[in-house]
């Protein structure tokens, strides 16, 4: 090669206590290219990039920029080398405006007009859409991301690192993001995208570098590879990229929701007159644009929205027993009767898990009230934790290690694993695979299918329409809190669901039972 590499890692290692996050990683990237950094959860992608951005400092190894060895000791140093990173958890001050956030860290007088002018130049150059005077807490996720990217460009970055930029975006927003990225690439910027969505890797990147359990497994040109090969590099062995979908056996009504209306904290009705039936032995998918009432619906069933159920009934029929009303029962009563909710919120540690406790302690959250002894039973949760660790391949030093320190995907495995282990007869899961790598996602899908075969009524709220169509038996489409339609997942197509998602009723059909699988 004539010109030096834009960035080169040489024998980089980083350890956190006993955990080796990166082990002897060496690779390079060129100017004006888009590189995808691919790897499973906990494979050390973010750690490696954090070293480039000055958040962490490598224990061993060297980083070269344009052929020169550099020491990046702080984010400030990173900016000095024109490196900027958009973190997965946005680093923005909520009570500041976009412009204030973007210009944060600059020295000199605070000249708001000059800042706005420069932001507008960047906007025009790459096609961003933002309002510099809007406060961050008023923004949607995609607007916040735009602010982050503009911030990095404003600081003059030539190398942009994006940590899972598409995880929280809608398909349209992803499309727009990619357009912007291509414009930046054309402008000579080097872009590194951390991701595990293979279709996006194939679409946007020039090269792919793959990490596996903290080790570098290779770098290939995107045009010379395919998703199957990449998955093998990432996981280290062959993976079947299809979801098994057995026919439902003897479906019995398990959960009948009748005319349910739910109001949220702000006094807005989020779920309007929703009626549906979930059958044992099938997976009912719930599709809808983010914020269409999915969360409120599930929380109402789990009893978390007690006070705000305006009207309607939720009848639960355990196997071989009489139906009973769930509205008015406490969350604990509902859970004990066999309705489990594995809800994976945007903030994974916010609901369901206690960050500073280990896996065992988190297992105990579900079992502490068992038995009549004065002391809690530690053996049961211990065994469960060990079981989940082995079964779902949770990457943690031991089951006492605080879950807060695990990578996002591993946290999710602990959460979903625990809910499934309680042997529910209705299992609700929302965004169970959000942010998970492909291998783990398929593990989760298989777990869902196993539960279905056990006769469990599975309710699965998902974002990826392709997966919903492959995994579920029926799909309920929500639009603005209304049931827009319930379709058969075996015969429906993406467009049909897309239309139902955006307009209530879509084609006017879509009453309960119109398509019984």
């Amino acid at each position: 090669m004539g010109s030096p590499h834009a960035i080169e890692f040489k024998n980089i290692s980083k350890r956190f206590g006993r955990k080796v996050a990166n082990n002897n990683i060496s690779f390079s990237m060129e100017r004006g290219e888009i590189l995808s950094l691919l790897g499973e959860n906990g494979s050390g992608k973010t750690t490696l990039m954090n070293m480039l951005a000055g958040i962490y400092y490598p224990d061993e190894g060297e980083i070269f920029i344009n052929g020169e060895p550099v020491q990046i000791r702080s984010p400030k140093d990173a900016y000095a080398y024109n490196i900027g990173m958009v973190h997965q958890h946005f680093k923005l001050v909520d009570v500041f405006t976009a412009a204030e956030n973007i210009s944060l860290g600059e020295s000199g007088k605070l000249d708001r007009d000059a800042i706005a002018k420069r932001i507008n130049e960047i906007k025009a150059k790459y096609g961003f859409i933002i309002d510099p005077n809007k406060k961050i807490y008023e923004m949607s996720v995609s607007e916040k991301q735009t602010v982050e990217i503009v911030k990095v460009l404003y600081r003059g970055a030539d190398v942009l690192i994006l940590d899972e930029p598409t995880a929280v975006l809608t398909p349209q927003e992803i499309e727009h993001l990619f357009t912007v990225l291509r414009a930046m690439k054309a402008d000579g910027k080097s872009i590194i995208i951390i991701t595990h969505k293979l279709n996006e890797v194939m679409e946007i990147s020039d090269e792919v570098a793959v990490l596996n359990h903290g080790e570098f497994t290779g770098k290939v040109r995107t045009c010379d590879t395919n998703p199957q090969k990449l998955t093998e590099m990432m996981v280290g062995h062959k993976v079947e990229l299809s979801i098994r979908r057995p026919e439902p056996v003897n479906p019995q009504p398990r959960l009948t929701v009748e005319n349910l209306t739910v109001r949220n904290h702000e006094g807005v009705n989020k779920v309007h007159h929703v009626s549906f039936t979930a059958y044992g032995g099938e997976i009912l998918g719930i599709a809808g644009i983010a914020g269409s009432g999915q969360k409120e619906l599930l929380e109402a069933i789990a009893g978390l929205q007690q006070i705000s159920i305006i009207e309607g009934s939720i009848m639960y029929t355990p196997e071989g027993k009489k139906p009973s009303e769930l509205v008015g029962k406490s969350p604990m009563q509902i859970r004990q009767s066999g309705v489990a909710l594995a809800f994976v919120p945007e903030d994974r540690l916010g609901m369901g898990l206690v960050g500073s406790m280990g896996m065992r302690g988190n297992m105990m959250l579900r079992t502490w009230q068992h038995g009549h002894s004065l002391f809690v039973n530690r053996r049961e949760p211990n065994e469960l934790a060990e079981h989940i660790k082995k079964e779902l391949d949770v990457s943690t030093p031991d089951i006492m290690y605080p879950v807060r320190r695990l990578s996002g995907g591993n946290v999710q495995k602990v959460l979903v694993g625990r809910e499934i282990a309680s042997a529910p007869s209705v299992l609700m899961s929302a965004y169970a695979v959000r942010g998970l790598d492909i291998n783990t996602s398929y593990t989760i899908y298989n777990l869902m299918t196993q539960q279905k075969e056990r006769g469990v009524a599975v309710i699965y709220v998902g974002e990826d329409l392709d997966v919903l169509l492959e995994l579920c038996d029926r799909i309920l489409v929500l639009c603005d809190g209304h049931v827009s339609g319930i379709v058969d997942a075996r015969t429906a197509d993406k467009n049909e669901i897309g239309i139902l998602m955006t307009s209530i009723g879509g084609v006017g059909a879509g009453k309960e039972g119109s398509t019984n699988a």
Partner: protein
Amino acid sequence: MNALVLLIYNAVLNGAPLMYGTMGEVLTEKSGNLNLGVEGMMYMGGAIGLGAAFYYEKAAGAGASGAAAVLIALVFAFLAGAFGAAIYSWITISLRANQNVTGLALSIFGTGVGQFIGEYMRVREGGYVAISNELKLFFQNSPFPAALRSIPIVGQLLFSYNIFVYIAIIIAVIMAYFLNKSRTGLHLRAVGESPATADAAGIDIEKYKYLATIIGGGISAIGGMVYIMTIAGCVWNHDGLAGEGWLAVALVIFCLWKPIGAIWGAALFGALMIMYVRVQIPFVPDQIYKILPYVVTVIVLIAVSLRSKRENEPPASLGLSYFREDR
């Protein structure tokens, strides 16, 4: 009418120590440090401020200048508070200890130091530490000429306070401008809201936290000196300034972390503190009046959380320590 003017006048006078205590703590909390040691720092400021003025006069003798005495008392009180806050900063920022525990410890430490110095001076100087009446006038009288002060109503309401009230207002205006309009103020607020964001933007977090906490502690401590030199009559006594520091911490919440709000809030708290003298209602004991500031704080807290406007909330990372490589 006259009773009302008199009430307002006395309210502002009584609120003046709180103005300093509160503004100092506002600055500290804007950096994300919750320093509960205000009471301790005000004690140190009170004892050392008084001592500085007293020994200055003793050294200078008859030629002692009032203006110099005021300045010396201000500087020493500030240094005393800054010293306390520096200990707090080192323990919480560099060593990352728990801020609540450290703040409470500083309160106990500062109260002890203040009491010790005050009592030691009192015993050594023959049971009584007080500056001369001529110098007292500089601490307690208005800096404005009689012509302005004698304007009816307006004169009393605007021009007849002691110099510390006016200094407090100037500091409040400067602080408000600094926090809302300047680049440094923006950076300081970013540190208090989200240190990780500020760090990623290349802001030196430790520097901001240290400076804001130390300067804030100094300003708070001036409040103690103002209390001793004006309300307590330039004399050290056993009770010192019981509770002023805690009231200042409550007032920070009351004024929603805004320096100008600290001025109004302190005047209101001052009014509540002297109500039992000025507005007496038969059969209501004094103690009921004395809890009014705290009752008002609780009511304001409830009202503010009901409105839940993001700008009125405390700095988001208040009370948390920051370590870049923490996961």
